[in-house]
């Protein structure tokens, strides 16, 4: 038997889920053209997977360095709050002094820069020797507070069409968020795989002491990973905020850090750091969204979704464990 590649387990899971659902509800896989763009359940799955997908790409890099970033959900909320603040500049918020219509560059660029800074801040704390789970827990808690301060505790809504197009528009027949996610995934992939950054990230995660001795700048690598993670969380925050045409500091990105960690695990990246698998992570994120969508469309309650997710995660992780696979094949061969 040919050995299964690292991405194949979640991929097989995803295909199986899609086929199963196609059998149960005909038309699930059907894609129709409506108003000049593609539409259908499958497009919807991809669209809804975008925020988690963006988070989990960054999370994969961070986990590969041997860390974890719990603050991405809060960073999403901050990015959304900053964007809405600049756009609407409501009275009583730090943005009240802005006048006139801000450029799109400011509305998108500043929140992303803020998110990247937040990520770099995490990275600096971790590089200084604070345990990742503690360092990022601080921003997970404080970040949501910052976002609420920025919006004065209100949900800031906007009507700007340029901004809402980000989450709701279409380009070449596909929703814009899907294009953004694809572009980000491609950019990160090229950045880490066509340079030696990916190797250095894995080396840092596999053994910090050994990689220090061969001159790898572990601290810089960590700051880089957390920075990218924060930056992508910022992009996800903008999309989430554009989607609902408002910044909801209480709920934007809530618990999504956990989904991102799950997607990374599902994709076959070990939580202990070292090797990572970006393609697997992407499949993992889509797999989780597929499951959620399927359960919702079949009319099962949200509570059941969570339990099913957990069962799926345990199942896939078991299948990726070399020990478990060895047991399976041994029993088969016996």
């Amino acid at each position, binding site marked *: 038997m040919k050995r299964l590649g690292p991405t194949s387990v979640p991929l097989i899971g995803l295909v199986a889920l899609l086929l199963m659902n196609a059998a149960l509800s005909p038309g699930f896989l059907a894609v129709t053209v409506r108003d000049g763009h593609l539409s259908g359940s499958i497009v919807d799955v991809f669209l809804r997977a975008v925020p988690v997908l963006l988070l989990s790409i960054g999370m994969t890099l961070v986990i590969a360095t041997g860390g974890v970033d719990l603050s991405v959900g809060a960073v999403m909320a901050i990015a959304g709050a900053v964007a809405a603040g600049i756009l609407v500049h409501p009275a009583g918020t730090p943005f009240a002094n802005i006048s006139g219509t801000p450029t799109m560059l400011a509305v998108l660029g500043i929140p992303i820069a803020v998110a990247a800074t937040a990520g770099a801040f995490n990275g600096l704390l971790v590089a200084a020797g604070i345990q990742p789970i503690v360092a990022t827990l601080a921003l997970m808690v404080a970040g949501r507070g910052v976002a609420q301060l920025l919006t004065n505790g209100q949900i800031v809504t906007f009507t700007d069409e340029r901004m809402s197009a980000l989450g709701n528009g279409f380009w070449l027949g596909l929703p814009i968020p899907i294009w953004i996610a694809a572009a980000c995934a491609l950019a990160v992939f090229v950045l880490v795989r066509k340079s030696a*950054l990916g190797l250095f990230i*894995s080396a840092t995660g596999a053994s910090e002491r050994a990689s220090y*001795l061969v001159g790898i700048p572990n601290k810089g690598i960590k700051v880089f990973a957390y920075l990218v993670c924060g930056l992508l969380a910022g992009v996800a925050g903008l999309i989430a905020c554009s989607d609902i045409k408002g910044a909801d500091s209480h709920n934007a990105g809530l618990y999504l850090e956990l989904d991102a960690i799950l997607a990374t695990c599902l994709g076959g990246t070990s939580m202990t750091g070292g*090797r990572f698998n970006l393609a697997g992570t992407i499949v993992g994120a889509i797999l989780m969204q597929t499951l959620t969508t399927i359960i919702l469309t079949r009319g099962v309650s949200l509570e059941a979704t969570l339990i099913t997710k957990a069962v799926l995660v345990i199942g896939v992780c078991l299948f990726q464990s070399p020990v478990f696979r060895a047991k399976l094949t041994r029993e088969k061969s016996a």
Partner: protein
Amino acid sequence: MLEITNLSKSFPGVRALDDVNLSLKEGEIRALMGENGAGKSTLIKVLTGAYPRSGGQIRFDGELINPTSPADAQRLGISTVYQELNLAPNLSVAENICLGDEDRRYGMIDWKAARQRSISALDRLGIEVGPNKLLGSLSTAQQQFVAIARALDRQARVLILDEPTSSLDADEIKALFSILKRLKDEGLAILFVTHFLGQVYELCDSITVLRNGSNAGDFSVSECPPDQLVSAMLGRELTAEMSHASVAQSSDEVVLQADKLGRRHMVGQLSFELRRGEVLGLSGLLGSGRTETLRLTYGAETADTGRLTVSGKPVERQTPRKMMQAGLGICPEDRKTEGILPGLSVRENLILALQSNRGWYRPLSLRKQNDIVNEMIAKLGIKTPDGNKPIDQLSGGNQQKVILARWLISNPQILLLDEPTRGIDIGSKEEVKSLIARLASEGTSFLLTSSEIEEILEVCSRTLVLRDREMVAELQGGELNEAKIMEIIAGGKA
């Protein structure tokens, strides 16, 4: 007392033990020897029930036994002291000795009895360690003694020691051996796994050699000269080619100069010069400052006094990265935690230093990587199907070769080798040594530590001797011999 007949163990695809026979009499110390992968560890694990056996019989006092776990074997009277001591460093000595078999009083653990038991077990070994001391605060040797005391406390009649001396210094080994001899006189049967030939002749009565999972020889120590033992282990005669080339003459060009290099609580002020193409040894006991000297030189620890000059250029505030860029490389002593990157492939491990030197923005193409890796695998005889195998699945010797290769491809001027042959089998040892000699003759300089004086004599043209974290002598030419080094280490005048 213990009789193993036709013992076999198969793993999927591998026959790890094939009809192995071994016997152990009362009051006998038997050495179990063999290269890495010969089946020593597997034999111990099957014998103690950690692995189920695939075939064969184990008789203990004439009765067939069938231990199902190490704890079960321990109840039968077969105790094992593992190389990585399986004790709890954050518990006290007494707790460690009694763990899993505590006396109870009114349903509570009777700590008074536990302490008594520990004291009597430790007394039997003739060592003084306070039973209330935290295990982690003891030296490795003392921890080992505690592990043996624990075995005695369980009424062990067969004691298995898995490479007990690999992290002990000469004095500690002496202490361990006198304890083992005492236990032997009390009638214990001891199975002693080791890589060191000298220790076998010093301590053991008989030798069982394994090779590729089968018996390769069963000798009485008095009737087996070392060369016969080595050829049984290797399955071939030691050829001239395997012993290294004679120590080459080095040039006068100084490539590395340390001037009063030191760090408080670590090592005193060291001054030495390393010449081009020279193999400079660092000799001394464990803890004498050998390893520390290498680490300071490489910047793995920051020196707080002194200066370091590489090829005439001073290097300020040394870090591994700076030293690497100045043309140095290091093979650390602790290969598992500081050498290899577990989980990453042989290829990734091998090209890491070169890639790190080039920087992240100038990646080596995969094709180039594969070319380099395949070349090194062939050149150094690294046993792996290809470069994509995770490095942790290689044997110790092959891992060491990968780490050597890691530096060789980045063309360092100076290589710092900390115990380059520790824990690797004899065949690989010879290969590593001849590789060092070859590279030195091509102009690479080496700074090398070894706890085996023999090895220093064989490879080095000059040696610095350290004692109690100070450099006490520099030996070369006719002075460089075993007696002289021993004398200086032991505290004689330089």
